[in-house]
């Protein structure tokens, strides 16, 4: 009886249900640096919009979609559950990708742009010949992405090999291979560069390497390839 009274208020009912199922919602991660700290490579204006508006919107919509999915699953509503998959991929993918992206960047005075030493540096030289050649390849593939997407340096954790890959829209890297672990991702959606670089995506790509956080990439690599 008391339970029904609780469940009558839709929100209360859902909260109760979510408590039982442990539905976790997501919130915007903080950046480890100020919005303006990546200048002149990426403007403070872009960083603020990108973080506070674009990433936040993905999170808000992801949480909404998860709530709706939770409801649909509880009710055994398979067609709604399936219909929600694209919203989950878009928005969940957006959250996953941007969370990685903020860690991929660092101000130059905190090591941004400094090439990796150690095992990742060696693997890059082995596989691509040099850092310059890797950068040229990623810039070419990033520039060639039609519409919106990402270009990635990844490690295949099964094959222990470095891979350069692109994804469309907010598809997470694993959609290109279940064993791919992202090391460096570069957002080539127009919102990532337009206010500063306008249509000249290649200029954005050339400049972003000055603030790429190879320390983080090296840590991830070392974990997969000890």
């Amino acid at each position, binding site marked *: 009886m008391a339970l029904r009274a609780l469940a009558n208020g839709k929100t209360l009912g859902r909260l109760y249900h979510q408590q039982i199922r442990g539905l976790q919602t997501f919130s915007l991660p903080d950046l480890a640096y100020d919005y303006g700290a990546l200048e002149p490579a990426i403007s403070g204006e872009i960083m603020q919009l990108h973080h506070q508006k674009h990433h936040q919107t993905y999170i808000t919509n992801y949480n909404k979609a998860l709530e709706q999915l939770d409801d649909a699953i509880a009710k055994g509503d398979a067609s709604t559950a399936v219909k929600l998959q694209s919203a989950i991929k878009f928005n969940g993918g957006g959250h996953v990708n941007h969370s990685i992206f903020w860690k991929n960047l660092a101000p130059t005075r905190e090591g941004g742009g400094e090439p990796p030493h150690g095992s990742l540096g060696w693997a890059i030289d082995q596989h691509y010949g040099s850092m310059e050649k890797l950068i040229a390849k990623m810039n070419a593939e990033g520039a060639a992405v*039609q*519409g919106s997407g990402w270009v990635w340096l990844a490690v295949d954790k099964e094959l222990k090999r470095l891979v350069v890959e692109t994804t469309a*829209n907010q598809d997470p890297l694993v959609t290109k291979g279940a064993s791919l672990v992202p090391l460096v991702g570069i957002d080539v*959606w*127009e*919102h990532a560069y*337009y*206010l500063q670089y306008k249509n000249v995506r290649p200029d954005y790509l050339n400049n972003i390497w000055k603030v790429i956080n190879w320390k983080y990439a090296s840590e991830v690599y070392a974990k997969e390839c000890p």
Partner: protein
Amino acid sequence: MASVTTIVSQLTSSAFLPATEFCRLSQSLLHWSQMQGPGIDLKPPPYALDALEPHMSKDTLEYHWGKHHRGYVNNLKKQIEGTELDGMSLENIILASYNKGDVLPAFNNAAQVWNHDFFWESMKPGGGGKPSGELLELINRDFGSFESLIKEFTIAATTQFGSGWAWLVYNDKKLEVVKSPNAINPLVLGYHPLLTIDVWEHAYYLDFKNLRADYISTFLDKLVSWDAVSSRLEAAKVLE
């Protein structure tokens, strides 16, 4: 060929031709010039680059038309030079390179050239308002009301994830709203496009930043040329 280009560019700079006349004339000229198999050119919008202010800035037009659209034209010309696509009309290049969905390299540039031509002509200074005549009748018939069309078109434009376009089309004697990703357009589905809005971020980022919804409502309230949509509907009915 040269005389066709001159007539079109004279018309676009003329202040004297009423919008509906211009649209009808440019449609038939386009049709004629396609029969002649013209080269690919960057057509200017049918208004000055600052004419859509304050709803779409001169800055946006300068980049969107002057860089993006121009880039698609120049890249397409380079791509088709010396190939079998060279000398074909733009619409035929699109259909040939669409290749039933297994797109060939020229498709992206060709479709984007066409899409942007169509987009500029979908707007006019002092646009917005309501459609009338037969167009309004069909809207009421197929959507229930003008407000309902606006709602559906807005939803399509808002929910086209990533880059793409939203369209009003005429298909099987009915009006429909569709959306498409990246460069895809309804020509490849055999539909007759009547109206489009570009929802690639470059179309609105300078003026609206992330606020795509505000851009869409401004487009519908202040920019859309229902005259152009009516002319296109007239042309499409002849073909169906």
